[in-house]
């Protein structure tokens, strides 16, 4: 369970790197166990492993190179998903949306994969009435609209009176009402063609999801379009509405399921600060589960979003295999954009050995020497495993690789790995190293472990 939890932690944090973490963990644990059986001190070994971990992480950080550009991102995606079309699309998408951009991965209707870009931001929650859609169209839009941002409930048409008076005073020529509930009776006010001619209005449901997510979307919308969100739970009504409470946008659009804005007229400085706060909160979150909704909110506010439609021969294949694959690859690309890339194929870990070897040479402490040796041996293992799995003898080349040069198993030659696009994501590798060494250190100081009876024969990082 301990190793399973360790690997799950890697997957949760960065979405990839579990095989590397498993290899490192297993090797360090086995070497450590031998040392402890021979009489070594568990706690001293654990402290020494912690020291070794920091040296390796520093060495990895020093190797990290930023990645940008469609070609290099496509190359990275290729190493993550081994699917040419998916890699091409992910490379293009991330070149455009960047680290924080919003990407939705959906099952497509076709066998091929496709992508679509949306300008502006959009949220769940569509029109209350389909009769608000123009004849024969699936989308309604308003230009230069005033926007009421709320989750308020409206039962009577008269409740809208303060709003309509405020809009008239503000001089706005069209109105989008975001609301929690609007009764049919209240809705009739806006379905009247005469009223629509006087003040074109869209009445839109405030987010399909209730609770905190709905409040978050209203808060984000207010940051984007200006104005102030009014909340039912706070007992707010339209009676205290002021013109400055209304948001404004160059365009508001809505379908039956979604609504969005293009060219929000909120204060850009306030928007930048709002995004900075969301980013700060995302960074402070410990788990991917808590971090992802915040990242998604940042992505939506960045001015556009992308959708990758994953198609396959069958819906099951698309849903179960390709969507997961695309999601894992996109998670890792985001980490790469944030943390950079290092030489792939196990070379970056080999290049961390120098720092550790120096520390080994300098320390007379037996526990530290045992820990450094265990980690040194483990750092070679991903390289050895990749070559062995490809049918090559690792010992023949291991002395010739390093300093960014590695063995390209497809070409059967030693090549500059980053230049050839054979890279690992620095953040993924760091997470794998950190989690594997920490996990092995904990396991070595734990009395009882439940071990899987049939261990896998081979793993590939």
């Amino acid at each position, binding site marked *: 369970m301990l190793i399973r939890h360790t690997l799950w932690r890697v997957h949760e944090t960065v979405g990839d790197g579990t095989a590397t973490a498993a290899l490192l963990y297993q090797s360090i644990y086995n070497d450590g166990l031998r040392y402890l059986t021979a009489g070594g001190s568990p706690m001293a070994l654990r402290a020494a492993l912690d020291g070794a971990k920091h040296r390796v992480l520093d060495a990895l950080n020093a190797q990290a190179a930023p990645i*940008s*550009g*469609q070609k290099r991102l496509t190359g990275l995606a290729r190493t993550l998903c081994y699917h040419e079309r998916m890699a091409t699309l992910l490379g293009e998408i991330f*070149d*455009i*949306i*960047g680290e924080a*951009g919003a990407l939705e991965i959906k099952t497509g209707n076709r066998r091929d994969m496709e992508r679509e*870009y949306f*300008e502006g931001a959009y949220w769940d929650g569509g029109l209350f009435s389909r009769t608000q859609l123009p004849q024969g169209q699936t989308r309604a839009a308003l*230009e*230069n609209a005033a926007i009421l941002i709320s989750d308020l409930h409206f039962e009577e048409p008269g409740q809208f009176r303060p709003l309509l008076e405020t809009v008239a005073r503000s001089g706005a020529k069209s109105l989008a009402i975001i609301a929690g509930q609007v009764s049919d009776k209240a809705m009739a006010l806006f379905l009247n063609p005469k009223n629509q001619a006087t003040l074109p209005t869209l009445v839109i449901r405030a987010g399909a999801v209730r609770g905190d997510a709905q409040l978050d979307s209203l808060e984000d919308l207010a940051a984007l379009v200006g104005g102030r969100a009014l909340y039912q739970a706070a007992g707010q009504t339209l009676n205290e509405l002021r013109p400055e409470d209304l948001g404004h946008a*160059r*365009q508001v659009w809505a379908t039956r399921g979604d609504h969005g804005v*293009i*060219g929000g*007229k909120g*204060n*850009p*400085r306030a*928007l*930048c600060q709002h*995004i900075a706060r969301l980013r700060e909160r995302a960074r402070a979150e410990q788990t991917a589960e808590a971090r992802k909704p915040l990242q998604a909110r940042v992505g939506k*506010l*960045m*001015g*556009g979003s992308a959708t990758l439609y994953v198609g396959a021969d069958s819906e099951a294949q698309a849903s179960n295999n390709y969507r997961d694959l695309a999601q894992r690859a996109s998670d890792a690309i985001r980490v790469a954009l944030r943390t950079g890339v290092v030489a792939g194929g196990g070379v970056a870990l080999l290049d961390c050995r120098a720092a550790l070897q120096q520390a080994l040479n300098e320390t007379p402490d037996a526990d530290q020497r045992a820990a450094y040796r265990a980690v040194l041996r483990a750092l070679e293992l991903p390289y050895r495993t990749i070559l062995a799995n490809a049918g090559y003898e690792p010992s023949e080349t291991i002395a010739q690789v390093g300093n960014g040069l590695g063995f390209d198993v497809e070409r059967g030659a030693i090549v500059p790995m980053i230049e050839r696009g054979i890279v690992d994501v620095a953040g993924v590798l760091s997470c794998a190293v950190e989690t594997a060494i920490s996990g092995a250190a904990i396991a070595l100081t734990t009395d009882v472990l439940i071990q899987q009876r049939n261990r896998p024969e081979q793993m590939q990082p």
Partner: protein
Amino acid sequence: MTEQSDGIVYGFAATHDRLFAACGAGLFQSADEGRNWTSAGDSLPTTAVAASPDFAHDGTLFASVGGMILRSVDGGARWNALQLAQPQPVVGALAVSPNYAADGVALAATIEDGVFRSADRGRSWSPWNFGLLDLNTICLTISPSFADDETIFVGTESGLFRSANGGRAWREVVLPVEYPAVMSVALSPNFARDGIGYAGTESGELLTTSDGGESWRGLPVGTDGSPISSILLDGVAILLNLGDALKLSTDGGASWQTRRTTNDMLISALIAPSGLSTREPLIVGFIGGAIRRLE
């Protein structure tokens, strides 16, 4: 000096044989280095003009009028109008890729709707505002080595944004001044090698970078807070437009000398078609519509 009937001189464009001026009274051209100006055919308020770097061969000009971008491929004799997306944006700046002959990229910065991009020689334009958090764009500058670095800077009402992928996506640039309105950006002709650029703000700060726009620092100019609405570079010479005066440095910004052009007219645009040498003319456009050639 040429007096237009009304409006403002928004900007200039220089080709191998002509100068163009986008003015409130329309588009004007001069074939004698700014001494005399004639109408270039359009009398609608023209807010920006840009010429292809390969103008001698392709004759391509772009100009903006209302919610449209006009394109000419015969040196301004005939124009095609391209309507931008609704609601109609007002274009404040146009720029053409230095690699236009190969990539066909042109960009338009709009006052409320961000940046529009064309990659088909201006036949179609689409908004490309991923990461551009402020759509109130003021100025637009393309890297001289665009073919290699695909770098573009856009100044907005709340800061400076940079694209490293030809304008398909934007990232906010961290500046030493918090959220300034960036009125002007100029990049060194050797930007790929020296990474030098300058940005002028509405409150008169001059910011400079020497690492390709990654980091910026303030450069003392001794202004009275007047907006720096345009910057011209020529080697180590820097010329700033402060509205009622020009500031010139011939030593890379270490020292500055002020030159007042007139007592009552504010400068809205300027261009130095042959560089900033004292022997070469400077063409200055004013709020009010006048264009003056300074010897």
